[in-house]
């Protein structure tokens, strides 16, 4: 039931979940991930279809090093945008920040829809393919997820990650303890954008076509659901949430239109039955102890 194409989509979902998680780990509810995803994807789509130096072939092939370059550039451009926007919007707190970031998503969507070179409503199509089959995308998607997960794991044992956790608990106290909270929040926001931008660049090639609808308000809510269902206290939560919630609509396809109802039910019941999300630090601790105890 799960083919390679769906697996790649699930990995992309996990990556976007992590992108929402990063600012949230510093207590900042940002819904801007789809905007940065759209920026990265649009850049990759434009570069690979317009810039022949990247080596797209007439038959629709594309060299892998050029793909990697696009991942870097997509991440950088999104990160740069986050740096500029973050200075302004991160002064807002809570729901106001969420609203401002939704506005950013809309601005980016409308810009991509109306810019003269992004293909309007149709978008950009026939994006060249670095891999012949969907299976080829598994490796770069997994590598990107491993890299992002590793950074998140490292954060927990270093000053920046602790500063983020402190801000989430009590921002004023963190400031009084010498933490540059503006800087830490901005760093988390930029990291989130870089991750979403690179994910977008990879997704553009995988999906073959790209248009303004890729980064919409719907996606803001879907990616937030990844984190809420999976849990926001450890980075594994959004990964699991992203994998599950991306797979679920496809797995439910056999039951027809009822699948949307079931999908909605999962999103509704998830927070009711597991308010901390599926993956919590306590669960990981129990698993760890169980793992140690199980060793011969």
């Amino acid at each position, binding site marked *: 039931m799960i083919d390679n194409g769906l697996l790649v989509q699930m990995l992309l979902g996990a990556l976007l979940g992590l992108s929402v998680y990063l600012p949230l780990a510093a207590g900042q509810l940002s819904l801007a991930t789809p905007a940065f995803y759209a920026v990265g994807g649009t850049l990759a789509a434009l570069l690979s279809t317009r810039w022949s130096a990247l080596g797209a072939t007439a038959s629709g092939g594309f060299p892998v090093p050029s793909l990697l370059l696009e991942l870097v550039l997509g991440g950088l451009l999104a990160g740069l945008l986050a740096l500029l926007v973050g200075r302004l919007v991160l002064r807002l707190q809570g729901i106001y920040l969420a609203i401002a970031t939704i506005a950013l998503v809309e601005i980016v969507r409308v810009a991509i829809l109306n810019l003269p070179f992004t293909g309007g409503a149709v978008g950009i199509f026939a994006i060249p393919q670095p891999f012949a089959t969907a299976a080829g995308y598994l490796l770069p998607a997994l590598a990107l997820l491993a890299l992002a997960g590793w950074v998140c794991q490292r954060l927990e044992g270093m*000053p920046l990650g*602790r500063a983020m956790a402190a801000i989430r608990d009590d921002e004023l106290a*963190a400031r009084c*303890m*010498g933490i540059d909270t503006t800087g830490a929040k901005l760093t988390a926001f930029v990291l989130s954008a870089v991750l979403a931008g690179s994910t977008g660049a990879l997704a553009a090639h995988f999906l073959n076509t790209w248009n303004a609808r890729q980064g919409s308000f719907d996606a803001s809510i879907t990616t937030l659901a990844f984190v809420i269902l999976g849990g926001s206290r450890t980075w594994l939560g959004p990964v699991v949430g992203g994998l599950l919630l991306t797979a679920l609509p496809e797995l439910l396809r056999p039951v027809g239109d009822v699948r949307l109802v079931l999908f909605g039910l999962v999103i509704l019941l998830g927070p009711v039955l597991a308010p901390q999300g599926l993956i919590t630090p306590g669960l990981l601790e129990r698993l760890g102890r169980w793992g140690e105890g199980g060793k011969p």
Partner: protein
Amino acid sequence: MSQPLLEVRDLSRRFGGLLALDRVSLAVQPGEIFGLIGPNGAGKTTLFNLISGVTPPSSGAVLWRGAAITGQQPHRLNRLGLARTFQNLRLFEGLSVLDNLLVPLQRHPRTSTAAGVLNSASHRRAERQRLDTAWQLLEELGLSALAERQAGTLAYGDRRRLEMARALATRPALLLLDEPAAGLNPAEKDQLCELIGALRQRHQLTVMIIEHHVPLLMRLCDRLAVLDFGVRIALGTPEEVRRDPQVIEAYLGTGTGGNAS
């Protein structure tokens, strides 16, 4: 007299129609324990908030070793050597006791984020130093047995001491304690009194302390300032303050219950 460590000059703060602090001036000398008393609502915590940068003053100046620091960000002031605790405890409740200390220790020593992500030798060395300092502080304040506990689950007295440990972890020259004895029983108050004296010795601290429990302050402090309705009505040694007619009136004459809590 030597140059004061901290000086406030004509400091005022207005909240709408309320003048919470009215041209308060005082100077804290290096090494002293300086008490701040006054009835509820006298503006003591407001003064702490202005000094620590949490609230900007409406007018007046704050000087640190003679240089103006008025209106600076709290984290900058903390890095200058000014740390505080909070009247209504603001621990990082979701973090472990140890992590509550590792947060402020992130600057002692400083390392780059890149070094942290790559887990470089310098980062690992810095982490060991931070852990050592954190354990020392836990030891000093009698919290080592609780290191792995989540801060939000601690007993009240332990939280108070953890807040002090957390402030000390930022290596302050001046420690602002906002009602550290509130909610403690008499025996605990005595212990706290000794602890503050010991900490001052070991960390070469200057201490500014808000407290309602007057006997404790009389015993602990080198000098005291008395606030009433935002105005500094007295300043001097405990003996001088005790005999000041204005202080007696503020505490006894108006019956606002200075000995409460």
